[in-house]
């Protein structure tokens, strides 16, 4: 009975969380639209002046890799192997933190070059979109700290699995948004 109860409850939560991700998608879609409306080659400075390929490539590599390393953890969840779970989480956590670091560095570089939030509307929409995404990654890393804590604390393993699975959906979603950012925000002006 308890298993059935927990799985019904989990399915509710999962459906609710998927719907929440739809809400997030609409929010990001609106920000992408804002970026399209306000960005063109004619703006000064233009995206080509501002963006630097190196930072985008490194950060993309780091974040995509973090989605892959989370699969180690996923395997740990199915095999009930705490070792794999921790291994996957730790690597993903470090990569997530690394991504946030690269983003902050990128923003600082731009600002030092004089490309700030208020320089023009293209930069405003860029910072708001990419900044909100970076905030999501940061939120995810804090979420992982909470998961570590809960794994160490003695909670029922089946419940822990549910909590971490929900986190996986979040992390892959945030990764997907980053792919969209690379395709729609950087790629037309970099590659």
């Amino acid at each position, binding site marked *: *009975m308890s298993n059935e109860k927990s799985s019904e409850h989990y399915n509710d*939560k999962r*459906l*609710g969380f998927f719907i929440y991700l739809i809400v997030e998608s609409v929010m990001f879609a*609106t920000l992408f639209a804002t970026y399209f409306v306000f960005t063109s080659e004619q703006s000064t400075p233009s995206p080509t002046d501002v963006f630097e390929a190196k930072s985008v490539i490194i950060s993309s590599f780091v974040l995509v890799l973090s989605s892959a390393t989370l699969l180690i953890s996923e395997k740990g969840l199915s095999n009930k192997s705490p070792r794999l779970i921790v291994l996957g989480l730790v690597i993903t956590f470090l990569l997530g933190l690394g991504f946030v670091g690269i983003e902050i560095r990128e923003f600082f570089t731009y600002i030092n070059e004089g490309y700030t939030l*208020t320089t023009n509307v293209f930069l405003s929409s860029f910072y708001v979109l990419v900044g909100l995404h970076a905030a999501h990654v940061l939120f995810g890393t804090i979420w992982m700290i909470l998961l570590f804590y809960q794994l160490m604390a003695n909670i029922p393993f089946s419940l822990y699995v549910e909590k971490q699975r929900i986190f996986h959906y979040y992390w892959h979603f945030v990764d997907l948004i980053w792919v969209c950012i690379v395709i729609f925000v950087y790629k037309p002006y970099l590659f």
Partner: protein
Amino acid sequence: MIFDFWGSHVTVPSDIISAWILTIILAPIVLFWISKKKKWPLVREYMITTNHRKIGTMYILFGVLFFIRGGIDALLIRTQLAVPENDFWVFQNDKYNELFSTHGTVMIFFVAMPLLIGLMNVVVPLQIGARDLAFPYLNAVSFWMFLAGALVFNLSFFMNSAPNAGWTAYAPLSTDTYTPSAGNDYYIFGIQISGLGTIFTAINMIVTIFRHRAPGMKLTIMPLFSWSTLITSFLILVAFPVLSIALFLLMFDRMFGTGFFHGGVGSPIYWQHLFWIFGHPEVYIIALPAFGIFSEVISTFSRKRIFGYPAMVLSLALIGFMGFMVWSHHMFTVGLGPLANTFFAITTMLIAVPTGIKIFNWLFTMKGGVISFTTPMLFALGFIPTFVMGGVTGVMLSAAPADFQFHDTYFVVAHLHYVIIGATILGVFAGIYYWYPKMTGKQLNEKLGKWHFWIFIIGFHMTFLPMHFAGLQGMPRRVYTYQLGEGLFEFNLISTIGAFLMGSSMLFLALNLYKTHKHSPNVGNDPWDGRTLEWTVSSPSPEQPFKKMPYVSELDAYWYAKLENEDLSEANDTRPAPVSIKTIQPVILSGLLFAMSISFIYQWVWLMIITGLAVLSIFPIRSLTSRNEYVEKRVKHE
């Protein structure tokens, strides 16, 4: 009035001083009354509850409270406009701008939304045989976020900086260049927070309806109010996030120096697009649940199954879907070009088709039925001609060339009040009278209810019918006065008298509430001889309804079981249900969000950081504390 305040002169208008004085007098009286009646335990119980009926009741209670506020705004507007070149109290120029801005915003976000969400909360779980919403805790969070947003918004008036850019907050007027005072910051944060609460409600409703229906109740036999809730929730999912981002960008413009919506660098038209991509679906978000209420009420009081059930569901879905393709009809005069205007004119005209189907189906439901003219039924009957009139002016407005004449005149004001009051407010009244027994266990007095209905509907038409003619005469919206020779005086005077009549009808509702709770006995499960599952549980609904879970095999199953003199058959496998818990966390979250909004509005950086971190800390706190409650429940279950 001018005050010396730490050496600087501060001018405070006398309406705000009166409001402060009134509050300072009333607040101790209310607190004293609660203490005297020993109601503090009750207040506490509601603050920590996660039960859907109690939360729904609170939504309705505060919806009514803000209805009074928005209604007073309306009466002040009508008094200022009663005679030409009027100079009523302080409500000219910018004070008048504040008046109509708060009236519109309060009525849409803090009256229509909570009243409908309140009814959904009370009714939907009972109607589909769920023991509560899927996420009771999230439901409490939604309510308290709504309240935090509403309080932030209403505080602006007391701080002498009410929003003054209209409920649509059109840019560039709403940017800091033209409205530098804190007013529109209050608008941004008030709506942002309550809007997020609404999104969570939508998620909750969808999961509840998809996964918590009684055994046997397929979507194809689900009652229409639940259907309208489901479709409304989908509209909220798409519309409200767009509003969130629009407000987010406007916040950047006002507080962090960006120029998204400024003329020149940015695009004021982009604000209009974003706002109406939210705003037009919002009209359907507040109309569709009302349609659902009317379907229930008309079917019950005609003693007949709803006519054309599949067509009713389909037209709800069609209206919802097409609601996203009409937003630019608010922007015909912007200059989007003939192609865009034609497209949006045609989609707007098309949306009248599913709406018309619904109207005919309600009429056919009544045809041949045994109609009883109860108060809820009267409101439903009043809705049909009223809404048809609003629909006809809607089709008139959808013709883009004609709209160039109608745009921003009182014709539009008349139209929007015919559809919004005609659907939402009449629907909410019908719903409150109809489901009052499920909320409180008592049935409202029918005689006073009928007085309420007749005075309201007469006052309503008296107020808004003349506005069509004032509009055709060219009277513009949002202007605080007019001249004698313009042929507007008679129309405006009649409107003002009608508005006070409509306002006075609310006194009958107040008297009704008082008398009902003073004298009436509690009623049984099924005072109206209803058709759906909510009438099988006791009134008021218990915290754990459906101890025996019914098996539902057809639409209006309860009605047909009653006809056969049988009980509904009992289902033997029921899914585990959420249990309502007691928690103070949503209230704390609400308080923190309130403080965070204030710190942003006044740019108190230290408070921003503290409250921001505190809001974030609610996530781990909830995650860590919910575990215990879950384990306890599971142990209890075994």
